């Protein structure tokens, strides 16, 4: 690129604002950046414009850099981009240097954006379309993020284009923003006071964790109900994905039926240890708490809770002879694996002098030493089992081993 042309363009721009700057001076600034510091010409142009804009106190120079319009779904980090999209979500910024954060979408997809306080951009309104010129795509926790800075021009545009969110399968989720059609399949014990609800949602291609943080106007999901979730953020933490619904719009689809695919992976092995805390447990009844209470009905946060509710679970070690996995089975899986329903377990505990220990022993003797095929997801240290089946004796496996051992049948 001929920098003198760029310099002329900048000079013209400033002249149009009624200030006169020596074109040679502009070109020298550009050359310094491009030749000495290896800056891309487009970036150099932006830098010089900003610098001169400040120096001569001229507003509205930014946005001079021509960038092609991009489809939001195709944005990749480290690019300068121009997009047109509709603001579909706004969230409270968590730092004074940020003016606004939210989600902007077009027909191809959606992206998180952040408006820096220094950008001097107009305040974006939910539901309106904007043309965003010369923004930068960055990666934040592996998810693309659109940064609106002082060199970005944001213009509201009038359009009546209908915007249909592009819905993706759970198996195709990646960090960023996504719309899904899913059924809520499981609710988990919330580990934080700030969480309204956490659990699993799924579609035929698999399941994923979801979280709703406590916030004004947020409602928990109902089990076994199908939802259209538009523009939720997809976070990645320690290699696994989590759908955060706060940014999105959640619409229940009460008529819908949806089969949820198991997803995850199958882990085979024998149960070699059944941990304390397996069997019948009492959970804190405070909404959103759900912690396991001590024998004296003490919740670490909410103290004595005589109105607890019972739950059934198994914490165990699955061992295939080479590696071991900690597994956690929740109520339904436990009931199936132990051949004991929650109601039966409660009755057993209430009528036995050993109380809840009786249930532990019963569950332990039902699963210890047994070969199980556990379907679930590896949550870092523990596999959360969504389905467990007894491994069955297969004569074909025996025949194959006889061949391998070289023996005669």
């Amino acid at each position, binding site marked *: 690129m001929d920098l003198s042309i760029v310099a002329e363009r900048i000079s013209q721009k400033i002249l149009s604002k009624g200030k006169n700057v020596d074109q040679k001076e502009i070109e020298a600034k550009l050359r310094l950046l491009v030749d000495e510091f290896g800056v891309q010409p487009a970036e150099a142009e932006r830098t010089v414009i900003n610098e001169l804009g400040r120096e001569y106190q001229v507003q509205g120079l930014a946005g001079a850099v021509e960038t092609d319009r991009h489809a939001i779904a195709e944005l990749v980090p480290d690019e300068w981009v121009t997009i047109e999209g509709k603001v579909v979500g706004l969230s409270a910024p968590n730092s004074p240097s940020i003016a606004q954060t939210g989600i902007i979408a077009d027909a191809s997809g959606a992206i998180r954006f952040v408006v820096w306080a220094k950008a001097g951009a107009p305040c974006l309104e939910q539901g309106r379309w904007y043309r965003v010129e010369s923004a930068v795509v960055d990666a934040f926790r592996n998810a693309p993020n659109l940064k609106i800075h002082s060199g970005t021009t944001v213009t509201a545009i009038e359009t009546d284009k209908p915007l249909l969110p592009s819905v993706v399968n759970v198996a195709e989720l990646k960090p960023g923003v996504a719309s899904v059609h899913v059924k809520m399949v499981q609710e988990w014990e919330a580990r934080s006071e700030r969480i309204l609800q956490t659990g699993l949602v799924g579609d035929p291609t698999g399941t994923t964790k979801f979280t709703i943080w406590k916030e004004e106007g947020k409602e928990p999901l109902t089990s076994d109900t199908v939802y259209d979730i538009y523009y939720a953020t997809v976070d990645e933490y320690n290699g696994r994905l989590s759908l955060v619904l706060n940014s999105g719009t959640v619409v229940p689809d009460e008529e819908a039926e949806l089969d949820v695919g198991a997803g995850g992976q199958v882990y085979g092995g024998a149960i070699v240890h059944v941990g304390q805390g397996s069997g019948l447990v009492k959970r804190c009844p405070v909404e959103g708490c759900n912690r396991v209470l001590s024998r004296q009905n003490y919740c670490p946060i909410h103290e004595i809770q005589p109105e607890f509710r019972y739950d059934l679970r198994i914490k165990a070690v699955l061992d*295939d002879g080479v590696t*071991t996995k900690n597994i956690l089975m929740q109520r339904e899986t436990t009931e199936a694996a132990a051949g004991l329903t929650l109601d039966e377990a409660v009755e057993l505990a209430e009528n036995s002098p050993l109380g809840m220990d009786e249930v532990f022993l019963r569950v332990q003797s039902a699963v210890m030493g047994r070969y199980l095929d556990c379907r679930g997801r590896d949550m870092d240290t523990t596999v959360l089992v969504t389905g467990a089946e007894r491994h069955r004796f297969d004569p074909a496996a025996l025949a194959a*081993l006889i061949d391998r*051992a070289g023996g005669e049948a």
Partner: protein
Amino acid sequence: MKRENQMTFGNRREARFEREPARRVFAAELREARHQFKEGTEEKSPTYVLLPTGQRCNRAFVVGSMTEKMRQGEQNIFYRARVVDPTGTTFVTAGNYQPEAMQQIARVEPPAFVAVVGKPNVFEAPDGGGVYISLRAESVTVVDRETRDLWVLDAAKATLDRIDAYGTTEDSKKAAEEYRIDPALFRKTVADALAQMHL
């Protein structure tokens, strides 16, 4: 462009405690194991028994028929049980330091199929009557026949895997020095065990 917020993978957490897997080993192989060693110098470092097919074993998983149990000792009660698989007998013990396993053995009525998870322990008979190996039980559970059958296949596969890797791992080179047993012998053991299943 800066990417300071990019997540860095790998060594994101210090190595966590890894539980020792329970090795599947037939009685015929376990009774030949003699060489016991400790990894590391700390008091809590794990102790291993080197299996003749060339793998260290800190914990074993055995399923077989408990044919007999004996209660010994007056002050310090102590159980010994015989657990039989298609290749021979494994001795299982549980004392005061394994109260849970001891109570579990106390409840078993032989003969019964049991699943045993335990730590191998090599000891010398006090009267100079030779070296023995037993499993100090962590847990003993009554199981069904299918679980026993599955274990025979599992132990057969694990033994064949060890034989196939023989000579390629440090542990198996050590086993070759310590035992001088041809691993082909154990291939025969596996074949015989599987042949019994077929009946």
